[in-house]
């Protein structure tokens, strides 16, 4: 139940003021942004590894979170999906850590929020462990940073190629709208743009990966100088520094690699894709535009507009398409902020019997109004509150997706400093009805966008059953 779920997430993401400092922020008064700091220390080891320490002893746990500054963006265009495949190899053991033991060892210590993720711009590895197991987490992370290649075998590569191909089957090929969304994405970023492979990559490229690729990728992108280690939670500062030095200090240094130079892409027309949807049972329309990169001017306007369009029952798209006219099962609008170029997407899933063309006309009518009149001050204030809320609610967790460690890492990666929360939130104070109008007019151009109509094949038994059930 997508609409139910998104409402629930909004409900959980309520505003909280970081680090317990009255007065609390209000919608009307200027916010007390100095209180939103996350105390931390950042330093760099001689081999180039960046270290961020942030102490927080509310619970006897500590998050260890490593960002390697390499993602799909840095892949060879003939090896789409490789950065992510490589991430899987990082769990297969290293010189001093037995084959495939990494996750199992941490699980049995009671680790939570244990994972690795690859996105377009970076790859991260994280675990939250009981605080007395900090050293084990550092031992595991340092061994794969320094000694991965001693343990990689053709067999482990082959297995992970299969696992990742299964992941592609599960999350793209047999997921509702998975292949349709991939087509739209590829139209936004034509090959050889490194975003083209949509992180997961193609089956052909996944099959083509070699041991040599693994070795070269590791040597180039997994040097300590291309990584940042964050430790957040309940630890003794001097002891943590000693352990970081012990485990990471002797890893050989290499110069920080240079990221590829990739020209920005632009659409010169409206691209319309009609996809014969095999998995989902309802038609979906999505409209996407290339938009300013993470933290560039316009990025915050896009976030605010997305909130005004689809967050809550009284948002513009939801009220008109779902609540009022009941043409759509659900709507969503979001800015996917990325390092090279971002993407703004509006999508609506049709109710049975409603065509995607009808939905598109409704979406266009709402956008025309925004292009003409912008949004209201009230909508901006509510969007600002909700956005702030989402960020600050994440501060409850030391680790995991969107927790303190990830937040510090994200600012460090994109802005060069870990604690830019106040700066980040201040961007939304500058958003005005006029700046949103300008964004809608100039960036959300009807002649430079990708429109996807994903319409289910009507012959499947499930489609027939749906009609029978109505």
């Amino acid at each position, binding site marked *: *139940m*997508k609409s*139910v779920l998104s*409402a*629930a997430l909004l*409900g*959980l993401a*309520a*505003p*909280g003021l970081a*680090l317990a400092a009255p007065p*609390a922020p209000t*919608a009307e008064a200027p916010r007390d942004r100095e209180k939103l700091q996350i105390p931390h220390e950042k330093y760099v080891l001689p081999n180039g590894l960046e270290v961020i320490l942030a102490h927080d002893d509310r619970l006897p*746990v500590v998050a260890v979170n490593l960002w390697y500054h390499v993602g799909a963006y840095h892949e060879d265009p003939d090896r789409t999906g490789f950065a992510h495949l490589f991430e899987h190899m990082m769990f297969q*053991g290293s010189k001093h850590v*037995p084959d495939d*033991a990494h*996750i*199992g*060892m941490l699980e*049995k*210590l*009671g680790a939570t*929020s244990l994972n690795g993720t690859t996105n377009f711009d970076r790859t991260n590895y994280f675990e939250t462990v*009981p605080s*007395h*197991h*900090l050293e*084990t987490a550092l031992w595991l992370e340092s*061994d794969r940073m320094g*000694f991965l290649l001693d*343990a990689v075998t053709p067999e482990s590569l*082959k*297995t992970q190629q299969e*696992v990742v191909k*299964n992941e592609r089957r*599960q999350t793209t090929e*047999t997921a509702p709208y998975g292949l349709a969304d991939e087509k739209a994405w590829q139209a936004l970023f034509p090959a050889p743009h490194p975003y083209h492979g949509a992180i997961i990559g193609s089956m052909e490229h996944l099959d083509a990966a070699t041991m040599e690729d693994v070795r070269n990728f590791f040597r180039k992108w997994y040097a300590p100088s291309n990584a940042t280690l964050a430790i957040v939670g*309940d630890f003794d500062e001097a002891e943590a520094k000693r352990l970081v030095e012990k485990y990471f200090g*002797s890893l050989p240094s290499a110069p920080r690699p240079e990221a590829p130079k990739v020209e920005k892409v632009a659409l010169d027309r409206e691209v319309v894709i009609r996809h014969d949807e*095999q*998995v*989902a*049972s*309802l038609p979906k329309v999505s409209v996407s535009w290339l938009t300013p990169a993470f933290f560039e001017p316009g990025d915050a306007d896009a976030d605010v507009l997305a909130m005004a369009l689809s967050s809550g*029952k009284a948002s513009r798209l939801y009220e008109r398409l779902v*609540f009022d006219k*009941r043409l759509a099962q659900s709507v969503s609008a979001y800015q996917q902020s990325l390092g090279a170029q971002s993407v703004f997407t509006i999508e609506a899933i049709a*109710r*049975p019997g409603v065509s995607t063309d009808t939905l598109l006309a409704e979406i266009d009518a709402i956008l025309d109004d925004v292009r003409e009149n912008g949004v209201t001050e009230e909508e901006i204030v509510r969007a600002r509150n909700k956005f702030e*809320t989402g960020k600050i609610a994440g*501060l*409850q*967790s030391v680790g995991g997706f969107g927790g303190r460690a990830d937040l510090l890492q994200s600012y460090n990666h994109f802005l060069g400093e870990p604690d830019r929360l106040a700066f980040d939130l201040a961007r939304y104070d500058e958003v005005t009805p006029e700046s949103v109008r300008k964004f809608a007019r100039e960036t959300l151009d009807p002649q430079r966008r990708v429109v996807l109509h994903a319409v*289910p094949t009507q012959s499947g038994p*499930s489609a027939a*059953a*749906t009609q029978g*059930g*109505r």
Partner: protein
Amino acid sequence: MRRILLASPILALAFGCATAQKAEPTPAAAEAAADTEAWRAQPPRPGVPAELVTPTFQKRVLENGLTILVSERHDLPLVSVNVAFSAGASADPAGKAGLAEVTYETLLEGAGQLDALALDKAFADLGTAPYVSVGQDGAMLGTQVLTRNLDAATALLADIVLRPQFREASFERRKQQQLADLALQVGNPRFLASETFAEVVFGEEHPYGKLSSGTPATVEKLTLADARAFWKRHAGPKAAAFVVAGDITMDQAEALARKYFGKWSGNAQPVARPKPPASSARERVTWVAKPGLNQTMIMMGRPAVQAGDPDEYALELASSIFGGFFGSRLNMNLREAKGFTYGARAYVDGRRGVGPFVASSSVRADVTGPALQEFIAELQGVRERPITEEELEQAREGVIRAIPGSFESVSGLASAAASLFWKDRPLDHYEKMIAAIEALQLPAVQQVAEKYFDPAKMHIVLVGDPQVIEQQVQPLGLGKLEQRDPLRPAAAR
């Protein structure tokens, strides 16, 4: 929060596997490296174990019967405030699957003087949004706010609970939304498997025999009168709890409860515990057609235990060892050794009544048969390769030590409190659970594993391509293949 110091003899054991060194460096390589890094072969010893932090819960009951549950956490000015209801999807009357969910969702369609949009905006003005969640054993309405907005948010929740509008147009809109949500779900292999699994394991007539969403056929027939009747029968202070977690004390919570829910009256009683379903040998393999699907969704399971069952924690550990972790037998076999899948997992869901044991995975279509055989082999393997002391200690430590990390958020604390209410658990449930898990010995865990993991009693549900299932599953002799379409409005239903 309560801090417990575990007398844990097992920490060293948890490291047993790490010391098993595999790659002996060749002499030349060893020489080249001058072995200055050889010390890394020894995994670090853990530090002094920190006290284990478990959440603490306080309870009071108002004169009208309303339970108040509080879990305090004051480091952020944040509160999760909720009303938990004891009637969940299992209280849906026969033939009206989906009624609980539609009824609770209709609450948000208008209350007091506010229609749905005005209500949404009133919460937005407090910087939040309300949510409703409906499970088999209960439902929860709530929100999360800054402490200073707690009073106003509670007032809105009280409007919703005490003065719901239940208007015809609102009900109809909500029902149509539910049907649209279901029309989307019928394309989702996991949903199809879960719906069919509930029917097969519990039987169509059992309270747990369908999902909370209902099916298009049952939801289509729901009326406003049904929703009003459900609400009248099940909503009342004796069958509800005011659940607050975060920056609040019990005295403050009680004052709030008195102010806004003190005059709530009604004699609705908590729903009865569902009776255990029949547990029988498998005769059929039930499958749902999804032509062209290049993965097959496998779901296996059976009725297992209810909350408080003497076997509960032994089965929890046995399920963890079997499929509860990444490093569990099932996942390491199907994913890491065979490359059949992106992941395979198993868990036991101890509910208010007897809940299921479930093992599932999405596997490559062309290995559907071999993957099923591996599922069976791993279940059988519990007898042939008994659980080892090491496996048990690892699962025990993993389960216990993960508890503090699971309670970082106030919404997590509130959910845990509501779960105690729904399942009639004591307030010191987590301490009792830890003590019980610490005390379990290998023979008891092995015995429970053998008792519940008998492959002959595991029901099997598959979603996939008809040809694949016909060709690969038929020859395995696991039972007669029976196709179902869980969404077809069968005459028998």
